[in-house]
């Protein structure tokens, strides 16, 4: 067993997911076999290459800030998808319990 039920509970918390007891148990079993498979990588002798070597032929694309769009032109369209809003704001529950 490479992953315990307590670890799965902790991961669910970090992932902001609520899982039932059955779901947690099933998740533990699934993750166990997947992690065991992924661990086959530990057997490979890897060369001491810089870790970004896969991107050797690519470069970061940078550009100057500029040409901003007029404020608010997309707001209504985007807010139309919000589950709850108040005017031009997203409305959320209080942060602290």
């Amino acid at each position: 067993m490479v992953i315990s039920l307590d670890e799965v509970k902790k991961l669910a918390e970090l992932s902001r997911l609520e899982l039932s007891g059955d779901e947690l148990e099933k998740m533990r079993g699934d993750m166990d076999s997947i992690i065991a498979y992924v661990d086959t990588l530990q057997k490979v002798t890897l060369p001491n290459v810089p870790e970004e070597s896969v991107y050797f032929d690519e470069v970061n694309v940078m550009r100057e800030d500029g040409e901003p769009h007029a404020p608010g032109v997309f707001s209504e369209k985007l807010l139309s998808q919000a589950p709850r809003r108040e005017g031009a704001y997203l409305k959320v529950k209080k942060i602290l319990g």
Partner: protein
Amino acid sequence: MSDITTLSVPGIAEGLRTRVFSSVDVARAHVEKIEKENPALNAFLEVFDDTLEQAKNADALLAKQGSDAHPLLGVPIATKDNILIEGKRASAASKMLENHVATYDATVIKKLRACGAVFIGRTNMDEFAMGSSTEHSAFGPTRNPYDTERVPGGSSGGSAAAVAANLVPVALGSETCGSIRQPASLCGLVGLKPTYGAVSRSGLIAMGSSLDQIGPLGRTVADVEVVYNALRGHDILDSTTLPDRNDERKRVPKTIGIPRAFVKDATREAQQSFEISLKKLSNAGYDIMDIDFPSAPYGLAAYYIVMPAEVSTNLARLDGTRYGFHAEGAILLDEYKKSRSGGFGAETKRRIMLGTHVLSSGYYDSYYRRATALRGLLAKDLTAAFQKVSYIATPTTPDAAFKIGSKGDPLSMYLEDIFAAPANLTGIPAITVPSERIEKEGKKLPIGIQFMSPKRTEDTLFAIGKDLMGEN
């Protein structure tokens, strides 16, 4: 007049130009076929209600442009449900985004719109493109037109089933690891995973951003080629797109390398089918030689580190606050948790949790760093191989389509993409074309052969695909 729904893209283009039929006729023929056959296949989640109107506009455009019209003008195209079309729903086959209406066009949509293509509907997929069977859709599985007891593959399974059943001539899919090639293989189609950066992802619902690419599925290599050429190009809205350049159409030596040890991961029947295609290519003048590709079998394990890490990051934004499924809770944190738990399906949750695990403090060296180093090793092995050969070939999938419900264990499903992983992890292009069919329980089922080539050499992939399919 022959059945319009059996025509290839050039066939439709010619019929439109010689006025044998109109774009409206083409759209109507496909919509009628969808109405009749989609209930059994569940390939389409929605047929757009303005399809005929788009076709009318295409007819008007053709009258104006005449011989200058793009070959895709008036051609119906199906789009995977993770590609945004302004004003249409885009759910990524998730309950999370079931009612989500796209607020802008993806760049690929803008490009196809400019060609005059007709968007006919959105196709089913595994939720958020996570899966190899379309069984992880929140809206029921898609079925394989060759045998409706079997899966069409995934995650672009709806697109593949739609094209295979002649519900549409061509469709867009997306790949993070095999999600175009694997369903194309299982549905007897041609499917292209372009070079990473060849096609803009602006407006594609992100899954694994260092891997995702949009690509076409079609019944012929020429159909896939015409769509790819319409999609590609630099885009200021996707900083990973490659600078435009005039790719030289240079002839490459007709040499194919076979990583023999890797190919053994396919079933005996799949290997036999593969050998028959190699024999055809050999008869067509290709030199076939064995090559070493020692890192290849480890690609999928590295993928199951990199991808979940990126998934857990990309899907963090779906929290029931800005858009998507929302559930009530006492405080904000409860709402996040309830919205995410209620909106995401089991496979999506699994990958988010795996990603959270591999990114946990203290695990970086054993997981993410090793996976990234393996990507480097794959790239190094490929560079060495491509000094000797122009192409690397493998079976596209380990076997033909499996039965719905037969791969309940997640790991057995993941292994479907063993041959796909090297191309996604290193950014090279790969194409699948139909190979010899395999007989299972009295049914002849399709399976593909895939060819990989160096970055930005899609032209050579089309050339070998056409040679194998006799499309010249």
